[in-house]
């Protein structure tokens, strides 16, 4: 496979990698680095890629592992970043898009979920993967995924009801 063929192969899902990485790492810059890292790693596997039935699923698993490793080493190094303090390059643009504050509240509550639930919400509600695919990517069984997803959605719902009744929403 040459470079052009590889780029064509990854172009349908490279943004998905970026969004999943951003869900876990929160900062846009770190997510961009992670995406590049994962794609370069995938390129080095070039010769054996044909063995895999779904390169996309492989890429997503690699992304998940890479980001969780990043988070782990950050914590081990006592460098845990308080994500809310991030000055994000895209922030002003996002603010333009948002008509209300509520969407950033949604983002906040999702990003406060445990990492695994965050990943599952991202893959199901945003990337719209089937449970079967998510199970393959996360190396979990489908029932466990449904349970975690339901838990995450209910946490979000509780929060939405609360903010709504306070008149924020």
């Amino acid at each position, binding site marked *: 496979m040459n*470079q052009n063929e*590889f*780029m064509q192969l*990854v172009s349908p899902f*490279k*943004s998905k*990698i*970026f*969004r999943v990485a*951003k869900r876990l790492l929160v900062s846009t810059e770190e997510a*961009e680095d992670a*995406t*590049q890292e994962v*794609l*370069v790693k995938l*390129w080095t596997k070039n010769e054996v890629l044909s063995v895999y039935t779904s390169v996309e699923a492989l890429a997503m698993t690699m992304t998940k592992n890479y980001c969780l490793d990043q988070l782990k080493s950050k914590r081990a190094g006592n460098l845990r970043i308080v994500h809310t303090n991030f000055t994000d390059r895209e922030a002003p643009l996002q603010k333009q*898009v948002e008509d*209300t504050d*509520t*969407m950033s*509240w*949604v*983002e906040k509550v*999702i990003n406060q979920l445990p990492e695994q639930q965050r990943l599952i919400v991202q893959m*199901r*509600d*945003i*990337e*719209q993967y*089937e449970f079967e695919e998510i199970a393959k990517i996360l190396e979990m069984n489908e029932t466990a*995924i*449904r*349970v*975690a*997803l*339901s838990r995450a*959605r*209910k946490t*979000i*719902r509780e929060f*939405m*009801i609360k*903010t*709504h009744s306070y008149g924020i*929403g």
Partner: protein
Amino acid sequence: MELDRIEILLEKYFDGATSIAEEKELQDYFSGDVAQHHEKYKPLFGYFVKEREQQFEQNIPLQTKKRKVVAWLSVAASVVVLVGVGTFAYFNQTQSQDLGTYDSPEEAFKETQKALALLSDHVNTGVESVQYIQEYETAKDRVFVDHHN
């Protein structure tokens, strides 16, 4: 869309039991006007749609071709260095082999004699200068007489 159906779908949604098609139905519903008691979920589904739009536009640094060029460059450079060092050493060696050798044995003998004479001459000069020191020694013995003997 019937409100009852939305109600059922929402319940299923929070139980993690909806299919992708059903979730798309919900998203369609929440992208338009919704019943007042559903207003609170609107930002949630709106957020999902918005998040899906984020794109990754950066270049991917695959760079394998560059790396190959660099590798070949380093190979070429090391070959140049090796050849350079090799020729330098080779020419140096041939120069140092020129020791001023004589071809006829008589001439060589004469030259050797000359060289040895020169050497012994210098050795004798050395011995002469040591004899001065002997002179000092006898003079010292005359002044400092050892009374213990």
